[in-house]
C-alpha cells in the first residue's frame, strides 16, 4: 500500500465515523421532527412539557398548533430562518443548561407571536389597534400586547 493510499484510508475512516456519529445523534435526537408541524416535536427536550400540557387544555388547542403562533407565516424563508434560529438557540441553552426560569419569550419571538395573533384576528382587532396610543403603520399591533391580557388563551391555565 502506498503512503497516499494509507492516508486516504485513515481519512476515509475518520470522515465515515464523523458522519455516522452526527447522523446517529441527529436520529436519536429526532432531528427531522423539527421540520414538521407536529407540536410533539416541541417537547422532544421535555422543558416545554408544561407549555404543551397547557396548550392541550387551552381554547386554541382545536385551531392552532405551536407553529401557528411561534413562527412567522410571511414567507417560507422567514419561517425556516426563525425555526433554525430557535433550534440553534434552544438546543444551545438546553445543552449548556443555562436558560432563564421560567422560560421567557425574547423580544423577537414575542413580536412573531403578536403578529400571528393579528394574522388570524385581523378584522376583529383592527379598531382596537388603530385606537391605541402611539399606533402607526409600522407597528403591527399598534403597540398593544395581546397576550398580556389573554395569557391563558394559548397556554391554558398554568395551575
Amino acid at each position, binding site marked *: 500500500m502506498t*503512503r*497516499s493510499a494509507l*492516508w*486516504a484510508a*485513515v*481519512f476515509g475512516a*475518520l*470522515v465515515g*465515523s*464523523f458522519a455516522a*456519529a*452526527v447522523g*446517529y*445523534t441527529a436520529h*436519536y*435526537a429526532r432531528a427531522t421532527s423539527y421540520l414538521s408541524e407536529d407540536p410533539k416535536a416541541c417537547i422532544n*427536550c*421535555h*422543558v416545554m412539557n408544561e407549555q404543551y400540557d397547557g396548550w392541550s387544555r387551552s381554547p386554541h388547542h382545536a385551531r392552532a398548533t405551536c407553529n401557528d403562533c411561534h413562527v412567522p407565516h410571511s414567507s417560507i424563508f422567514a419561517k425556516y430562518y426563525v425555526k433554525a434560529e430557535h433550534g440553534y438557540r434552544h438546543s444551545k441553552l*438546553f*445543552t449548556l*443548561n443555562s436558560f*432563564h*426560569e*421560567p422560560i*421567557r419569550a425574547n423580544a423577537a419571538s414575542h413580536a412573531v407571536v403578536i403578529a400571528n395573533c393579528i394574522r388570524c384576528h385581523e378584522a376583529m382587532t383592527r379598531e382596537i389597534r388603530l385606537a391605541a396610543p402611539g399606533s402607526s403603520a409600522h407597528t403591527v399591533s399598534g403597540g398593544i400586547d395581546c397576550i*398580556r391580557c389573554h*395569557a391563558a388563551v394559548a397556554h391554558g391555565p*398554568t*395551575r
Partner: protein
Amino acid sequence: MTKLPSRSLIFLVAAVAFGIGTVAAMALYANIAKRKMEAESTVLKIADITETTIDPAEWGKNFPREYDGYIRTADNAPARFKWSEGRPPEDDANAGKAPSKLVGDPLLTTIFDGYAFAIDYRERRGHFYMLLDQRDTERVKQKPQPGACLNCHASNVVAYREVGLKNGAAGSLADPLFSENGRKQLFTGWEQVNHLPYADATALVKHPMTCLDCHDPKTMALRVTRPAFLEGIANLAASSEPVPHLPSIEEWRRGDKKTPYDPNTLASRQEMRSMACGQCHVEYYFKGPEKRLTFPWHKGLKAEEMEAYYDETGWTDWTHKRSGAQVLKAQHPEFETWSQGIHARSGVACADCHMPYKREGALKYSDHQVQSPLAHVNLSCQTCHNYTETEILSRVDAIQSRHKAMLDRAEQAVVDLINAIEAAKAAGATDAQLAAARALQRKAQWRADLMNAENSLGFHAPAECLRLLGESIDYARQGTTEVAKLQMAARR
C-alpha cells in the same frame, strides 16, 4: 526523517478536524441521552423507606436533590429587614446563635415584660436550626416548658407512636399512619408527650422536622401528620367562616358533615402544599392542665376571630408585669395571614413561592431549601408575574417598608400605653379604674405582636396586615386616652 509532503499535511489537519468533530458529535449524543434519561426516571430507588425511617439521609439516598435542599436550610435566607440590623455583635457566650431581636428592638422587652420572651427572643433561622435553637433558648432553659413544644420543632411521628404504643394503643409501628391503629398510636402518644417536661420530651427525638413529617414513605404523597393541625383544621371546617382559598373545606361543608373534615383524604394536592406548612406556621396555645396543643380556629382564621375565641375561653398567656393587663402572645401565624391575602385567594400555595420548581437538565423537582422567595425571584415570582426582577423587588420593598414603618409605630403606641397604665397604677389608680385601658392593651398588643411574629413583614396579606396595625395603634391610643381621663378626673 523525511519531510512530510504538503498534501499529507492537509490530510493530517483535515483528519484531526474530523476526529474532533466526531468526538464533539458523540459528546452531544451523550448529553442528549442524559437529558432523555433525566426526563424519564426521576427516582432511582436505592434505600427502602418505611414509616420508621426518620433519618433524612436515608431518604436522601433516593431523593438526593430534595435532601440537598433540605440540608441547605442551614444557609440563612436573605431577609429585607432584620431587627438586629446595625447593632454591634453580641458577646462570645452568644456566638453561633441567631441575633437577638430584643437587642435590635428594645420596645419588645417592654412589650413582653414578665414573660419568657423578654428573656430571649431571636431572629428566625432556617429549618436546619429548629430543634437546636429550641433546645438552646433561654426561654426553655430558664422557664420550664411542656413537651407540647416538640410538635413543631422535631420529627416526632415515630416518637409519638412509640409513646402511644407504650400507653396502650394497639398494633405496631408497621401499621400505616392513617390506619385506625396508626392514628390511635399517634394521637395517644401526642397527648402523653404534650404534658411531659420539655427536657424529657426532647430526649425522645433526634432530628428536626424531616421527610417523614410531610411525606408518605411509600407514595411520597404529601400528608399532614401533626394531630394539632388535624384537630384545628377540622374545627375551622366546622365553623361558618368562609374559606374560599381552601375549596375542599367548602366542599365538605356542602356534604353531610357526618365525619370531621380530614385534609389527608379530602384536600387537593395544591391545598396540601400549604397545609403541610400550616402544621407549624400557625398561632396556637397549650390548652388546660394536659397542655393540649390547640389552634384557635374555632371561629375563623382572622385576628379578631382568634381573639374572640381566646376571650370566650378566658385564655391569657401571661399578666403583664408593668401594666397588670391580661395579654396574649402571638406565635408565627403565617398560615392565617396567608389565608387573608390575594395569593391564597388566587390558588397560590406556600410551596409555590417558598419551594418553587427547579430544573436540573430535563429533571424538574421542588426546591427543598425552604427560604424567602426573594432568594429566587425568577423561580418564585416571575412564574406568574411578567415583570423584571428589579420591578418585582421594588414592589416587595414598598409593601415591606410600609409595613415595617407601621409596625414600629404600633409597638411604640403599645409601649406608650403600658407606660401610661404603669404610671397611673403608681399614682393610685385601682384595678377597676384601669380595666378599660388594660383591655385595650390586650387588643392593641395582640395585633401588633401577630405582625411582629409573622414571617413576611406584611407581604402575605398587605392590606390585612396594615389594617391590623392601624387597629393596634387606634386601640393603644384609645387606651392612653382612657388613662388620661382617669388622671384628669383625679385632679378635679
